[in-house]
């Protein structure tokens, strides 16, 4: 048996053990099994990674189903891209499992939580390991299920349940797009295997109409899973789930599945420049919209959630420019610092007795020194300050954007300034100034246990050094990631070599671009410092927010808009169909019409008006018998 099969199997076994045995297995064992399963997978991934020769390998498991010539096999593809994703999923996954041992310790659903978390890792691994689009789709829908289960984890709260359903349904809208993309791929290429589709696609022309629809439909899927306009509103609501879930699923891994899918399909997208164009603009709009909402949010997790939506926008922006590696690089660094920030927020919430509103925090750096230090590092990393991880990955994207369109670049830099502002606003309000919560909360303040702070420290280190995986040549690096990932663009390069020519900017322009974005970030940080440290401003209570700020604070009323345009009309339609069309229309004139017709006949024979059902039945059966016999008799004797 190939070792690769064990990678998803271990978390699945963990799910089965904790899932079937929950409430009977002691907590210590639950945590050990859950974390150990993912850690075991991580170890196997590491060994595969270190022994990787550079050639993609397909590991068939079994034939899933066959209809006519259409055969779908269940198999895994081990190559550069899937290995990196597996490293992120199992590596960060292990840290977050470890963290959860401390974070969820007092929760009665401890076993259930670990079971779901393991199940998530299983499906996420299928998503990135699948050797064809349908195995990817299994993972795709499976992680959606786990996301649903974990958002609604505290199921007594109906609002959480609503958030969970919203996430599932919005994802399903995207999934329909994905499914249609799959049908189009089968119709065009006769297979869903990457190894058959991509070489065949490389023979096609740039601008092929069929490829436009395939890539566009797949992108609809990506919009749902990776929270892009217009399918993003589920992600901020998904914060209803326990914080480790937000870190793992709604920041580091699942939400980047859309980027993975497009990088995986790079040959298709390279040949569909119109789709890339659409992706670029959707991504930019998402990045800006979400960042602006983030400016005024007061819930520590909501700020991070909008930040995630916005950062996903940056990743897609990279893809839209055809700079797949840049987009993917940002997936990696973002996984480090956003997981860190969420776990840090969790540590804060844990210390604050479940308080999430930053207006009631303040001054926590003294009581939570490790959380503070690591959170600070994460904040610097996301703000794009060199030499932290976010700087390298974001700057690479921005350079590609500049080459494509200076206007888009300007807007994107504006977005990254907003990022630096809302992140430092969050940091200052949480950790600096005076404590603004209740005495009771103040009394309880404590640094989290080692199971929680250890993951913070590891992720903090990664957030600091993560950028060095792909230092560009201009800064004296060797672009390691770029080189490592190079083979996965083999077919795209064959089909359209120009698309992979790299950035053509001269060095002075590149330095200028970096300078501008770093300066922008620094200005934002100073502004945040002045407002929240020097002037000690605290965001106003909800009812005092007004004007434009109110519109943004209320998230531009997009949720209300969707409710009015989609939800309410469908509910009204449902009632209309049921009471008017079904009961009032079809049933009365159609079915009961038949009934009246029969009763009318019965009226002719008043004898039949007995009302005894048995008698009616008898008559019907007799009737059938008479007709049958009559027709047969005429056949026999006629």
């Amino acid at each position, binding site marked *: 048996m190939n070792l690769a099969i064990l990678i998803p199997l271990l978390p699945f076994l963990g799910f089965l053990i904790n899932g079937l045995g929950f*409430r009977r297995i002691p907590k210590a064992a639950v945590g050990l099994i859950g974390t150990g399963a993912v850690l075991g997978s991580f170890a196997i991934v590491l060994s595969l990674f270190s022994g990787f020769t550079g050639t993609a390998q397909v590991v068939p498991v079994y*034939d*899933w*189903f*066959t*209809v*006519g010539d*259409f055969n779908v096999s269940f198999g895994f593809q081990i190559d550069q891209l899937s290995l990196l994703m597996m490293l992120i999923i199992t590596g960060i996954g292990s840290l977050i499992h470890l963290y959860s041992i401390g974070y969820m310790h007092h929760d009665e659903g401890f076993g259930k939580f670990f079971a779901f978390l393991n199940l998530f890792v299983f499906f996420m691994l299928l998503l990135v390991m699948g050797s064809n689009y*349908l195995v990817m*789709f*299994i993972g795709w*829908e*499976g992680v959606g*299920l786990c996301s*649903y289960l974990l958002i*609604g984890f505290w*199921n*007594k*709260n*109906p609002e959480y*349940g*609503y958030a969970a*359903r919203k996430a*599932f*349904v919005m994802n*399903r*809208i995207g999934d*329909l797009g994905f*499914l*249609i993309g799959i*049908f189009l791929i*089968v*119709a065009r290429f006769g297979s869903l295997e990457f190894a058959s589709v991509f070489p065949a696609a490389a023979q096609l022309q740039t601008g092929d109409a069929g490829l436009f629809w395939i890539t566009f439909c797949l992108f609809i899927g990506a919009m749902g899973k990776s929270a892009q306009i217009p399918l993003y509103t589920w992600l901020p609501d998904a914060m209803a789930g326990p914080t480790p879930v937000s870190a793992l699923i709604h920041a580091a891994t699942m939400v980047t599945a859309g980027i993975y899918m497009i990088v995986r399909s790079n040959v298709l997208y390279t040949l569909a420049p119109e789709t890339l164009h659409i992706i670029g603009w959707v991504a930019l709009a998402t990045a800006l919209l979400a960042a602006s909402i983030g400016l005024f949010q007061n819930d520590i997790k909501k700020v991070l959630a909008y930040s995630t939506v916005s950062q996903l926008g940056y990743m897609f922006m990279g893809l839209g420019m055809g700079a797949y590696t840049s987009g993917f690089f940002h997936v990696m660094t973002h996984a480090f610092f956003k997981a860190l920030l969420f776990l840090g927020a969790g540590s804060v919430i844990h210390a604050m007795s479940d308080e999430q509103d930053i207006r009631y925090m303040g001054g926590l750096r003294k009581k939570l020194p490790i959380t503070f230090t690591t959170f600070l590092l994460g904040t610097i990393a996301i703000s794009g300050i060199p030499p932290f991880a976010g700087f390298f990955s974001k700057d690479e994207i921005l350079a590609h954007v500049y080459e494509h369109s200076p206007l888009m670049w300007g807007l994107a830099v504006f977005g990254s300034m907003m990022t630096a502002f809302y992140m430092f606003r969050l940091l200052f309000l949480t950790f600096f100034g005076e404590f603004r919560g209740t005495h009771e909360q103040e009394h309880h303040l404590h640094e989290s246990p080692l199971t929680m702070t250890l993951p913070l420290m590891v992720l903090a280190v990664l957030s600091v050094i993560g950028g060095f995986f792909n230092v560009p040549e201009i800064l004296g690096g060797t672009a390691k990631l770029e080189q490592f990932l190079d083979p996965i663009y083999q077919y795209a390069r064959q089909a359209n070599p120009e698309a992979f020519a790299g950035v053509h900017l001269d060095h002075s322009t590149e330095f200028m671009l970096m300078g501008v974005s770093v300066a922008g970030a620094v200005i934002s940080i100073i502004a945040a410092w002045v407002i929240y440290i020097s002037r000690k401003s605290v965001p106003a209570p909800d009812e005092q927010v007004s004007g434009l700020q109110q519109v943004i604070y209320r998230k531009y009323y997009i949720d209300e808009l969707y409710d009015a345009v989609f939800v309410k009309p*469908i*509910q009204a*339609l*449902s*009632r209309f*169909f*049921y009471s008017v*069309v*079904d009961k009032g229309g*079809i049933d009365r004139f*159609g*079915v009961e019409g*038949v*009934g009246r017709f*029969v009763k009318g006949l019965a009226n002719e024979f008043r004898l039949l008006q007995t009302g005894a*059902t048995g008698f*009616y*039945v008898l008559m*019907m*059966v007799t009737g*059938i018998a008479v*007709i*049958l016999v009559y*027709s*047969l008799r005429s*056949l*026999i004797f006629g």
Partner: protein
Amino acid sequence: MLTLALILIPLVAAGVLLALRGGAVKRVALIASLVEFGLATYLFTAFRPDTSSQFALSFDWIKSAGIQFAIGVDGISILLLLLSTLLVPLIILSTFHHSYKNPSSFYALILAMQAALVGVFVAKDAFLFYFFFEAALIPIYFIAALWGGENRIAVTFKFFIYTIFGSLFMLLALVYLYLQTPGTHSSLISAFYELNLSAAQQSWLFWALFIAFAIKMPVFPFHTWQPDTYVESPTPATMLLAGIMLKMGTYGLIRLLLPVVPEGVHQWGTVVIILSVIGIVYGSIIAIQQQDMKRLVAYSSFAHVGLMSAGIFSLTLDGLQGSLIQMLAHGINVVGLFFIVEIIFSRTQSRDLRQLGGITQHSPVLSVFFIILVLGSVALPLTNGFIGEFLLLKGVFTYNAWIGVVAGTTIILGAVYTLRMVQKSMFGLQTATTEQFTDVNTNEILVLIPLAILVFWIGLFPNVFLKLTEPAVADLLRSLK
């Protein structure tokens, strides 16, 4: 002989039951249905997946008229045999905690119903098919009318009249087809395949046959008997209706309609696909606001059947294979869901989502099974529903991309109404109605475990079933070309 035994075992057992009294009735009924299932399983293992009719048996019924008692099993029949023999023991077991008045009649009628259903799926003679098709109605009518809810009389009467009304068209069509056969006439279904019917003949024959099957399934707009009947019938009857009986309609389409009037299908297929797809969207949208869980599942079943029908009329291998595996999957899921509703009702005396909530706090085991069945129903990959829906949608999409997209909304709407049902019953705060809820007992677990295993087994290894039916389906499609 084995095929005949499949019809006779439940029939004889039904006779025996009438003579029994007391607690033995249930057990004998269960044993009989298990023997039946065992026999069907043997047939399943002994079946060679090719185009032939196996385990066949025929003797003259009305010799001078060429009417035969001809039965046999081909790839399409075997799947439905498995479904009907598998579900009946589970349905019987699901009643073990419930005492129905006059149990010997109750269980005798269930087994008689099974005999008729098996008869439909193995009949090779058109009149024999018709006979069983109608015979199945009588026991289910009595079960619903005698053991049903408050409005049972009016509702079951409507159901009875309406379905009989539809079947009369089929009888008319069958007699006409019979008269077209050469020589001394033959009523073998295969003889009908050989007829050279004009386009005009096929056109009206198409509708005569279609209406009969469309009412049974049901297809929009012939469906309005269905939600009321499902709600008013006692749950075992609802399970029989939704799990097995509606497949008589889809089976009839494949066995009779497509091969006998292929030109009629080409002429009217688009209309039927559009009606079916309207049914998917319409049924799903209605389900979104239902408060009665049973009615909600009824409308969801109606929506699912619409997709099966559309897939059949796409005349693609994907569509037909998808519809067959979906018949199996839907039978399992819908029986499971109705059973969950019954479990909730038996403890709370309510199926109203406004009165329910928080059940999972008392019954984690029940909620796990509920969610597994829901996953099958919303077609999550690796569950049984996915294979069917994927192939059906692929077939419909191949037929026409835009119709395929509209049909595809089922995956979104299905999630909306089923998850709402889970939320309002299982999650949230407890209500006065659900405070005293007790988790599932052993009998209930014994029903739910096989269903849950099947949800995943079919989802993981669909080839076991697809390979069984493919030769017969491919042969059918070749004959249509």
